[in-house]
Every structure is written in structure tokens, then in C-alpha cells.
């Protein structure tokens, strides 16, 4: 079994002692004949923020309680089948029946649900986006079939727009304002907290916080069409200073310079204008708004909304095989474009790393 609890120092305050959740995880693992434990970059049971941690605690408590109830009821039922030779008067029978029904049928569930509701309401309240002394960072995430548009309206020097990567400051609450450009998607970073639907025409808000710098997986959680499984998001929490620097490096002026730098890529730029510009935006080169912006694509960790990792030659591979890597995605097949051109395009795009 891998180590269950990856989180280290905890910023939020409301949580059970470490040993409790660790032993609970052990119990759960044993129960389920689990081989791999609770970890994983999308595991709810491996929280990395206060909201997710609250939910994990609730889960373990509920699991233990539910297991006890299930075992109790089953044992009682099996026991009831045991042959007995007792003769009871009708009055005795009525008394026994009433005891079962009032005790098990009314008191047990009423007590349980009252406890649970109080638990749940108070946990939910802690996750409310209440006004804070210092307004939190706002990040806008807009779902598209099947990629993510990410905007930082509060960036110093002007709004920063990127796609398919979400970089956030660690150790402070962040408000996510989510929406959709087409169908309903859902924004969900399991290790940080609950999900929220991304609806066309509406903006939904959720507050999340990452304890410390780390990388998290995220995936669209609402069926959004054929690309649903491949609509993933790379989330990275970084220290505040790094975050500010990251934003500064993505200011429009910086990106414009980056796009036209290095004359060796002139051919690729021309090819881009012919084949890609009507759908993709690159600051200073094109205005296309159908696909994700590519101004800083070289600096992203993943390509195709989480389909392949960025490495040397990855963009060219993506451009050649994207319809197999991510079936039915909306970018046309590039069979009509020379492989050399695609390689050149890939090299240039990979260089767009601020």
C-alpha cells in the first residue's frame, strides 16, 4: 500500500488527528482489498486543501457509522431466522414489535439524520464564499467542447488569458468563476474540493484553496459529448511570488514579443497563418477564437486538454495524430499538410514558452 496521506502541514484548522484518518484509510483499504490505497492525482481521499479535507473526514465518519448499521441490521435479520420455541402473549408481541419499530425505525434514523445534517450544514458553511477582509484572487474558467479557457482578470497590468492549464497561488483562498461557451461542463479539482457546473449564460462561483505548492489533476465531470473523457485540466498551485511572476510573463506585450521573436520560425509563422489562424489566437499573430489560445502553449505541461505531456516533438506528434489521441475533437485532420510543415509548426509552438 502506498502512503495514504500525502498532505503535509495543514493551513485549515478543522480536521481530525492524522492518525484517525490514517487508520480509517487503512481500514477502508483492507475492507476493499485495495492494492493501491487512497492516493492519486484525482483522489478525493488524498486532500490538499481545507474543503476537500473536511469532506474526507465526513466520509470516513459516515463510512464507519454506515458499516456498523449495515452489519447490525444484517446480523439481526439473520438472527431472526434462528428457530426459537418461545410462546408469547399478544401483549408481549406488541411490546416487542413496538420496541423494534420505535427504536430502530424512528429513533435510529432521526438521531442519525439530525447529527448528519448539523455536520453537513456546518461543513458547507465553511465552504461558503463569504466576503473576506482582502478580496481573494479571482480566476475565470470557461468550458468549451473539449478544452478549458482560463482567465485572470485581476492580473496586474491587464487580464491574462490562457488555456488548458490552471496556475493558482498556494496557501490562500481563490475564487473560481466558472461558465461555459457551449454545453454544460463541470469544474472539479478533486484534491481541493467539490465540483461546480459550468453553465452557458450563467457564472457559478466556488472558493478553493491549496495548502501548498503541488500539481493536481482535474477533469470535466459532466457529460459534455464525445470528448468528455479527454477534457482534463492540469492544475498547479505555486507560491504567491511565483504566481505573480507567471502572470507578468503572460502579459499581452510580453507574449507579442515572444510570438515574433527568432526569425528561424518565420516559415512556421506563415504556415500557422494559413492553416491555424482562423481558429487559434496567438498574441500579435492571429485572432482566431474557436480553439484554445496558443500564445504560451510551449510553457504548458499538457497538450490537447490533458491528452499528452509536453516534451520535445510533442506538438508535432499531436498535430499528426490528434484524431486518434483524442477522437472526434474539433480540430480538422492535418493529413493535407506536409509532415515537415507540422514539425516546423511544432518547433515554433514549443518555443512559445514565456
Amino acid at each position: 500500500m502506498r502512503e495514504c496521506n500525502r498532505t503535509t502541514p495543514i493551513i485549515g484548522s478543522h480536521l481530525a488527528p492524522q492518525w484517525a484518518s490514517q487508520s480509517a484509510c487503512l481500514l477502508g483499504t483492507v475492507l476493499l482489498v485495495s492494492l493501491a490505497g487512497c492516493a492519486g492525482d484525482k483522489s478525493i481521499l488524498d486532500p490538499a486543501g481545507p474543503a476537500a479535507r473536511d469532506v474526507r473526514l465526513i466520509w470516513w465518519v459516515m463510512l464507519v457509522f454506515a458499516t456498523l448499521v449495515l452489519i447490525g441490521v444484517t446480523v439481526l435479520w439473520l438472527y431472526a431466522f434462528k428457530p426459537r420455541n418461545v410462546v408469547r402473549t399478544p401483549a408481549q408481541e406488541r411490546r416487542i414489535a413496538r420496541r423494534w419499530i420505535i427504536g430502530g425505525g424512528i429513533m435510529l434514523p432521526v438521531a442519525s439524520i439530525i447529527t448528519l445534517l448539523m455536520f453537513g450544514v456546518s461543513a458547507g458553511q465553511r465552504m461558503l464564499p463569504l466576503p473576506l477582509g482582502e478580496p481573494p484572487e479571482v480566476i475565470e474558467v470557461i468550458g468549451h467542447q473539449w478544452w478549458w479557457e482560463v482567465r485572470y482578470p485581476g492580473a496586474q497590468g491587464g487580464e491574462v488569458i490562457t488555456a488548458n492549464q490552471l496556475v493558482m497561488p498556494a496557501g490562500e483562498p481563490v475564487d473560481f468563476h466558472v461558465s461555459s461557451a457551449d454545453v454544460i461542463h463541470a469544474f472539479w479539482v478533486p484534491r481541493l474540493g467539490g465540483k461546480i457546473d459550468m453553465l452557458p449564460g450563467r457564472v457559478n462561483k466556488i472558493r478553493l484553496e491549496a495548502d501548498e505548492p503541488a500539481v493536481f489533476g482535474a477533469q470535466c465531470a459532466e457529460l459534455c459529448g464525445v470528448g468528455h473523457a479527454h477534457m482534463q485540466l492540469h492544475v498547479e498551485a505555486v507560491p504567491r511570488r511565483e504566481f505573480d511572476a507567471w502572470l507578468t510573463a503572460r502579459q499581452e506585450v510580453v507574449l507579442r514579443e515572444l510570438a515574433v521573436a527568432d526569425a528561424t520560425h518565420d516559415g512556421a509563422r506563415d504556415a500557422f497563418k494559413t492553416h491555424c489562424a482562423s481558429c487559434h489566437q496567438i498574441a500579435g499573430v492571429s485572432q482566431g477564437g474557436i480553439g484554445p489560445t496558443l500564445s504560451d502553449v510551449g510553457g504548458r505541461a499538457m497538450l490537447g486538454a490533458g491528452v499528452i505531456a509536453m516534451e520535445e516533438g510533442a506538438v508535432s506528434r499531436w498535430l499528426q495524430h490528434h484524431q486518434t489521441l483524442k477522437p472526434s475533437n474539433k480540430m480538422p485532420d492535418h493529413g493535407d499538410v506536409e509532415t515537415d510543415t507540422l514539425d516546423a509548426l511544432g518547433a515554433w509552438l514549443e518555443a512559445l514558452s514565456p
Partner: protein
Amino acid sequence: MLLARFQFTHPIHLVVGLMLWSLWFVGVYSGLSVACAVAPPPPEAGAFTGLNAALGGVSLITAVGFAVLAWGGGQAAKQHQGRQRFHATVSAWLYLFSAFGVVFAGMPIISVPPCL
């Protein structure tokens, strides 16, 4: 006595309680939704808003009403036998459950801010 006029031995009382509960539920939910759409109180106010007070007041009155009906049903049950007693008893429990349902589902009104 007024309660006696309700004729708790009639099976209609098997459904009246929870119908009223449903009305209360829909009323509280839609009242909240409309109020939040039209004039949401400031988030800073937390749960101490006029809206919470109004919802809580309505719920309290409803719950008390159900409790009275449950008591009335219980009294009627004692005075009858057979079919009529059956109807009055089950109705009384259903009124009691409705009262509990109002109190229980209304509990969050005390502590949760209305429109967040």
C-alpha cells in the same frame, strides 16, 4: 370544539398533512429563490437577515399547526374503534411527521446565509 370539526377519522387526513407539508416546502423554496433573485440581502449579514426571520417564522407557525393537528388526531383515535381508529391514528402520526419534517428541513434557516 373546533378540532372536532376536522373529522380525523376520515381517510382524507392520510394525505392532507403531507400535502400541506409539500406546500410549505415549495413555498419556502420558491419564496427564497424569488427573494434572492429580486432583492438579495448583503452577504455580510450572514444568517441574520429579515429573509431568514420570515422563513423561520412561517416554518414555526406551520410546525405548531401540524403539532395541534397531530394532537387532535390522537384524541380522535382514542374515541373510536376499528376503521375509524385506524385512520385517525395513522393520520395523527402523519401530522406529527409533518411537524418534524418542517422543523428538521427548516433547521438550516437558523444558521445559513440565504442567498450564497
